[in-house]
Every structure is written in C-alpha cells, then in structure tokens.
C-alpha cells in the first residue's frame, strides 16, 4: 500500500518533469527538469528493490552526465529558442499524432497480454551490489570488457572532436567565426607516417 502511494507520487513527479523538459524553451530549465526525472526514477528503482542501480542513477546520470550537459550549455551561452516560424511547422501535429499512436499501441499490448507476473517484488538479493558484481565478473565478463573499450574510444573521440584548434596549428587559433581558418598544418597522411 505504501509502495503504491510512493509509486504514484514518483511516477507523477517523473511525468511532470518530463513534460516540463519538453515544454521549456530555455535549455537550462530543460536540464533541471531532466535532473528531476532522474531523481524520481532513482526513487522508483528503490521501490523496485534495486538499490545499486538507484545509486548509480544518481551518481552517473544526475551527477556526471548532467554536469557535462549544463557545462556545455553555459559554455556555449545558449539563449532560449526564439519563437520563429520554421519551415517544419507541421512537425508538432505530427509529433502529437505519433505519440497518440504509440500510446495506443502500448495500451493495447498491456491490455491484451494476460498479467501473470503481478506479484510485487518481495525481499530478494537480486538488486544488491554483490549479486550485480558477481554477475558482471563471471557470466557477463566479455560485455564488461567491451564496455571499457567503448569508454576508451569515447574518450579519444571526444578529445579529437573538441580540440580541433590544436590540429590547425598556432597560426589559425580562431575559436569562432563563420569562416573557418584555412588549415596551416595538414593532418598527417598515412604516407608520411610510414616514412
């Protein structure tokens, strides 16, 4: 009973924050709404008896990723979206229509599939850190290692994308400008590397 009340509270919070995320024009307010969604989902994970995932949700999503997003928003000095008439103005009714279709499909599936799994999660050690660690380092060791390779690739890729000025050499250290400066130092071709 208490869990149901908690579910309703946090589900309402998550949906409200998600609607605010879409409705806001200022990206900074959208980011704060998204942090609200993350925190509400973290509380829902606690009601699902998954404390490790709840903690990682707060630390990684609401901590690391959203700090990165807010940092970029403030670095780029983004203003609110101006209300200009775009040539893609038909997108809003199209989005509403697609959303209605998607919700209808999901509601149909939820009503047509017989609910056989409606026991609420009782006490179990599934969500504890130890069982997750055991699963991660025994049966799912290969995806874990591949994940580390993925993170390394993301690290190198982000540095390559964000530090373009260093590739062009010191004479072209123009950060912004509609005309990009001509490259002074060409990137090494494979032939030069071989020599």
């Amino acid at each position, binding site marked *: *009973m208490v869990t*149901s009340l908690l*579910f309703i509270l946090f*589900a309402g919070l998550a*949906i409200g924050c*998600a*609607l605010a*995320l*879409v409705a806001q024009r200022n*990206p900074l307010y*959208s*980011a704060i709404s*998204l942090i609200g969604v*993350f925190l509400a989902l973290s509380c*829902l994970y606690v*009601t*699902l008896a*998954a404390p*490790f*995932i709840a903690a*990682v*949700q707060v630390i990684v999503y609401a901590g*690391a*990723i959203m700090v*990165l*997003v807010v940092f*970029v928003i403030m*670095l*780029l000095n*983004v203003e609110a*979206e101006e209300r200009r008439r775009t040539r893609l103005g038909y997108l809003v009714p*199209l*989005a509403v229509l697609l*959303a209605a279709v998607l919700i209808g499909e*999901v*509601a149909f599936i*939820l009503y047509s599939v017989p*609910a056989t*799994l*409606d*026991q*609420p999660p009782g006490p*179990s050690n*599934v*969500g504890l850190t130890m*069982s997750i660690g055991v*699963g991660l380092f025994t049966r*799912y060791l290969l995806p*874990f290692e591949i*994940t580390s390779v*993925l*993170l390394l690739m*993301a*690290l190198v*890729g982000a540095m390559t*994308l*964000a530090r*373009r000025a260093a590739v062009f050499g010191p004479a072209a250290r123009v950060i*912004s400008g509609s005309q*990009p400066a001509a490259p002074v130092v060409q990137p090494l071709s494979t032939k030069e590397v071989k020599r």
Partner: protein
Amino acid sequence: MMEGPQLSWYLALSAILFTIGVVGVIIKRNVISMFMCIELMLNAVNLTFVAFSSFFRDVTGQLFVFIVMTVAAAEAAVGLGIIIAIFRNRESLDVDDASVLKL
C-alpha cells in the same frame, strides 16, 4: 485492497516517458534539448529493464541497465563534443542551420 504496484504500472510509466522523449526529439529544434530528450528515452527503457529484473528476480536486467548507463555516458561525451564542433562552425545550435554537411 491492492497490495503494491504491479508490473504493468511500471511498463505504462516507461511507455509514457518514452513517448514524451520521442515527441521532444521531433518538436525540439535546439540540439542540446534533443540530446536531453534522447537521454529521457534511454531512462524509460532502463525503467523497463529494472522492473522486469525485479519481478522476474533475475539480475540480468540490472546488468544491462549498467551497460546502458555506460553507453549513455560515452554518448554524452561524444555528442557534446559534436555539439561544440557544430557551434564553432555555425554559431548556432538550431538543427535547421546544420542540415547540410558542408560549411
């Protein structure tokens, strides 16, 4: 009386959040806002994984959520790098201004 939230409640909430994310990606023009809507969709799927994992009493779903979070972190790093590169070249974050690959 009902004894607790059932599996279909979590699935319905996840579907609603995912749909809101889809709508945001379609109607938003700011590329950072679209990025955050994609994060919302990833979180909706994570909620489905955790709900199934908890109701089936199987840890695999939560391991998958762990990996999805790692992929989301990598996506954030690379995606924000791309956003910074777009802003340097075009002085704008509107996706309509970045509809062609050439400068």
